Structure formats: structure tokens, C-alpha cells
């Protein structure tokens, strides 16, 4: 057991898989000697060398194109896109090429690749380095989308993503990079498409993702003090989506609150709300409520950014208001 930060877990997860499988290679900007702009890849080039851990030019299309071409010919590449906002400059490769090619070729090709990227706000970087783009990825058929919320899950879900034979968009909440957790020794391998129930309650179910998970947990603690007992579900994987766990936990309490960092429209919670409304409508005791970032580009100033992204306080007041009305 060792206490690791979220960022240290990234390197540990990648190293765990690179040790066991020679076909795992890693490319991106500043990932080698520099150890990554967020220091998430420290030590990898020292252990695995510059052939397997390879610095690239600032060419996001080339990075992801190379990952795709390598994956279709037998490697298992991991590619880093420094900030997830930058997906916009290489989205053709992600959404048209990687995501569609297996289907278009009637299964002739497989794409065992992972694209990991720093996602979301909290660092006061302004609108072009802060957006939560999980909903961009979720709406593209052919992409799996994984969003860990803690250091242990980072390792296990990273391993599962690398071992998976489909393309996985692996989004790391930048706001969590310095969060710490005790991590067991030895190999950690998790399962994609599994949500986790982090807290069982009887009055309401908070379904959260990524950086919103610790906030939902904290909000649940505060709500408990005022008599509202909440379940907290960490979604962890948007595609595949563990609807069984979500539906079961919402049925049990009769109330669903989603806590989402993405801007409002077409956020992942809208899909969850629609599934819940479709399939367990009569188990609900009140409206489904989505707690999201407003539909705005994220502002830079700390005061404004804190107003935009769902806070513990906003979660608490929203749940309170809705439960007591």
C-alpha cells in the first residue's frame, strides 16, 4: 500500500501495462523527458526508452492518425492529447476515422488504442483549456469513454482500457491530478462499463462523473446532516454505460440527481435522465434534476469558474430545494 496522487497513478497504470505487453507504446507531446505537462508520465521514458515512449511534434492529427495506423497493424498505442479542448483540431481522426473504420470495414480492423487527455476545469485556465468534453466523445458511435474519479480507479481503468480491443477515450479530470489515495501494491485491473456505488442512501441518488464525484460525496455528507440520505454512484464509464447499476440505485431511492461538469446541452446526464424516464418512470417520486455547468464557455477568473462548475454548495442547495418542494 502506498499513497499516490492521481497523476502518479497515471504513470503507474501505463507502466504496469507496458511491462506486461511489448505491443503497448505511448506517444504525445512532452510525455518523454519532460514527464508530461501535468507530470502524469514521469519515469516512463527512463524505464521503457524513447522507442516506446515517444515525443511528438505539436501535430494532433498526426498523433492520433499514427495511433490509429499503429493499432490497425497490431500495436496497442496510448496517445496523449494534452488538453481535451484540443480534440477539436483532430476530431476527424477520432470521430470519422478511428470510430467508424471497424464498422465500415465490416469488422476487418480492430483499434485497440487509448487516447488519454486532461479534461475539465478548476485550474483557472480559461475557456480553451478547461472544457469538460466527455459529451463530445459519448455521442460518437464506436468510441468507449472512461472517466476515473480517483487514483486507484485510474490504474485499474487505464489497464482495462489498454487491454480493451476498442478505442477508448480516457479523460483525466485535471482538477483531480493532485488528489491522493492509498493504492494497493501489485497489479490492478478493473472492468470497463461498471459504475460504482460509493455510498448507499435511502432518499435520493446522486449520479456523478470524474471531478464531480468527490463533490457529490461531500454534498451527500452535508445533506445527511440535514436528514437527506443520498446514494452516490460514480459512473466511471460513459460507454459502455452501466445502466443496470444506475437504474437499480435510482429505483431504490426514487430520485435522480446527475452531477455533470459538461456544459448543459446534451450532457451525459441527459442520456441518463432519458433512460431512467423511459425505463423506471413509475419508480420515481419526483422530477429528475440535472446539476451541470451552465451552457457557457468556462470563464478564467476563479470567482467565475467556481460559480460555473457544480460546487458542493450548489449540489446541496439543489437537492434540498428539490426534495423539500
Amino acid at each position, binding site marked *: 500500500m502506498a499513497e499516490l496522487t492521481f497523476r502518479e497513478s497515471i504513470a503507474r497504470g501505463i507502466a504496469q501495462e507496458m511491462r506486461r505487453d511489448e505491443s503497448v*507504446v505511448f506517444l504525445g507531446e512532452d510525455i518523454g523527458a519532460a514527464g508530461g505537462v501535468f507530470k502524469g508520465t514521469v519515469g516512463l521514458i527512463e524505464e521503457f526508452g524513447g*522507442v516506446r515512449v*515517444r515525443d*511528438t*511534434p505539436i*501535430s*494532433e*492529427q*498526426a*498523433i*492520433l*492518425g*499514427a*495511433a*490509429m*495506423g*499503429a*493499432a*490497425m*497493424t*497490431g*500495436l496497442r*498505442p496510448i496517445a496523449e492529447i494534452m488538453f481535451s479542448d484540443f480534440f477539436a483540431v483532430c476530431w*476527424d*481522426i477520432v470521430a*470519422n*476515422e478511428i470510430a467508424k*473504420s*471497424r*464498422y*465500415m*470495414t*465490416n*469488422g*476487418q*480492423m*480492430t483499434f*485497440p488504442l487509448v487516447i488519454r487527455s486532461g479534461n475539465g476545469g478548476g485550474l483557472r485556465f480559461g475557456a480553451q483549456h478547461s472544457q469538460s468534453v466527455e459529451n463530445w466523445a459519448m455521442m460518437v*458511435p*464506436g468510441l468507449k469513454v472512461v472517466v476515473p474519479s480517483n487514483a486507484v480507479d485510474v490504474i485499474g481503468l487505464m489497464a482495462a482500457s489498454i487491454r*480493451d*480491443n*476498442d478505442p477508448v477515450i480516457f479523460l483525466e479530470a485535471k482538477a483531480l491530478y493532485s488528489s491522493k489515495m492509498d493504492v494497493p501494491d501489485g497489479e490492478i485491473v478493473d472492468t470497463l*462499463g461498471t459504475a460504482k456505488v460509493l455510498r448507499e442512501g435511502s432518499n435520493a441518488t446522486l449520479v456523478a462523473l470524474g471531478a464531480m464525484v468527490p463533490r457529490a460525496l461531500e454534498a451527500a455528507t452535508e445533506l445527511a446532516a440535514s436528514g437527506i440520505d443520498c446514494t452516490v454512484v460514480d459512473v466511471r464509464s460513459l*460507454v*459502455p*454505460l*452501466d*445502466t*443496470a447499476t444506475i437504474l437499480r440505485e435510482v429505483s431504490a431511492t426514487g430520485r435522480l440527481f446527475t452531477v455533470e461538469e459538461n456544459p448543459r446541452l446534451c450532457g451525459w446526464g441527459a442520456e441518463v435522465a432519458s*433512460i431512467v424516464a423511459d425505463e423506471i418512470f413509475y419508480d420515481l417520486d419526483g422530477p429528475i434534476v440535472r446539476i451541470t455547468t451552465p451552457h457557457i464557455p468556462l470563464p478564467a477568473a476563479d470567482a467565475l469558474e467556481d460559480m460555473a462548475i457544480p460546487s458542493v454548495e450548489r449540489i446541496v442547495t439543489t437537492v434540498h430545494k428539490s426534495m423539500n418542494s
Partner: protein
Amino acid sequence: MSSTKVAPTSSDLAHKVALYRSQYALRQFEKRAYDLFLEGLVKGTSHLSIGQEAIAAGVAAAMRSDDWTFATYRGHAHTLARGVPMTPVFAELMGRTNGLMAGKGGSMHLTSVEHGVMGSYAVIGAHLPIACGAAWSAQYRGTEQVAVAFFGDGSTNIGAFHEALNFAAVWKLPVIFFCENNLWMEYTRTSEVTAVANPAADRASAYGLESIIVDGNDADAVFEVTSAAFARARAGEGPSMIEAKTYRHGGHSRADPGKYRPDEELAEWMTKDPIPLYRTRLLEAGVSEDELVLIENEVDAEVDLATDEAKAGGVPGEDLLLKDVWADGGASWRN
């Protein structure tokens, strides 16, 4: 394509006869594809390579069977030239279950991994970086395989082209960038929107590459220059870029009559039609008229048979609709 059954007079001549057969077959295939389009049997769109066959045939002849082709939407010829039979290609164009991808890809996405045809890509430029990735994997595994990406003159102005060239150069990747310069994008002359006269070759030096221009209507010249590029790539000397001057005889796609092109330009290029030129060259080299007619008859029969076989294919059903989004064969995104 099936190999020639003509008794070779020498191995060099046999190679040339095979190149003729390949070019002729590509031409006849495309002509039939056009007819099928007009008959309404090929739906959607198609982009023919009529006039550009010397490139597909010449490059394919220089490839090892485990090398990789990355084509564009104008990819019928490149697919067939690697040895993919005609029937599944016709059937794919017609959206039948016996199609190369059971009708799920269509004309613009022909792919046959077992023949090294690693896809036809319909978003301009995208496959250049993807070819770099295949080349990277060959380099990493030390297999001496080479990836070739074909693209048009118009494709040299998109970002992915420039990203891929620099990337391949700095990583010294075994990849060949092959520009088929047919002078036109869709309906606009590439020279009107391009800063340099030779859209690919004039950019080569920016990436530390040699500027190579070849007559794209001469299969022998294409074969030669490409063979040298393959040798460099296999020797670990990195990427090459080749610009071949050529012309498409027809329109950009579908039933486009290509009226935007001056008559004299088309007439001039028709005199440079690679297939009659190559036929004359073979006759001059001592191949008999009878041998060539025999080949042509065989190919014509192959095209007819393939057309019939393709037409006989089934209409894809719902089992295919939800197949192979994921590696497990299915399309499920939830439990």
C-alpha cells in the same frame, strides 16, 4: 488480378505484360462501374480512376505483398491493383452482402486487410497520418513493411498533409506519400488555389525530402521511381514523396461530365492515355498482337463474370446493421 497466362519472352517482358494486364483490367472495371452507376445499380457516389491507371498498377507492382496501401475515395483501382478480386468490389459498390465489406462501406471506403489494402478514406488528408502509424508499427517491429498513401493534388493544402510529412520525416518512417496530380480538385483547378506549381513536390523540401516528379501515365516510370522509394524506406532511410502528373478522363465523381475543363486540355491528355501508349510500347518490344488480344479478352470476360456474380449477391439485412461497431462484433453500449 489473376496473373497473366501469356508465356513470357523474358522476365522483364513478362513483368511488363502483367503491368499492361493490370492497367487494362483497372480501366475495364471502372468503365463497367460507370455503366452500373448509370443503370442505377451503383447508388450513392463513385470516383473513377480512368486515365490514372498507370499509377495504381505501377505502384502495386513495386509493393511487397505485406506492404500497406492507404487510398482515398478514388480507391477502386488501388484496391484491385493489390489483388482484390473484382466481384466483391463490384458487389460493394452495389451494396450487396457479397461486397468487400458486405455493403457497409461503399465505394469510398474499400478495404481488404488480407490484401494490404488498409482502407480508403473520404475525408481529405486523413489517411496520411494514419499511414504514418502503420509505418511506425513496421519500424517498431522491424518488419521492413512500407505504407503507401495515395492522395490528390487538392489534398496537399489540408493540415493533415503537412502534419504527416513532418511527422514521418522526424520519425524517419517507412512511408511513401504518393500524389496523383490530375490538375483538378473537384471542379476547381488546383493551381488556382495553391501557392506553388507542383503541389506535392514543391513542398517536399520543406520537410527535408527530395522533390520527385514522375510521368504518372507511364507505368514503367512509376514502377521505377516507386521501387527506389520502397528500397529507401526498407533500408531505414525514411519517407519519400512522389508527385505523378496525370489526368482523369472523366468527371470528379458520379455522372459529372467534367465540362469545366477546356476541350483542348482534355484532348491533349487523351493523346497521353496510359493504356494505348503502353500497348504500343509492348508491341514495339516484341509482344504479339495476339497475346495482347488474348489478355484483353480474358479481362473482359472477368469483368462480365464479376458483374454477374456481384449482381447475384443478396441485399444486406438487419444482422449486418448492428454488427461490428465493437471488437466483440456487436453494437451494444449499455448493459
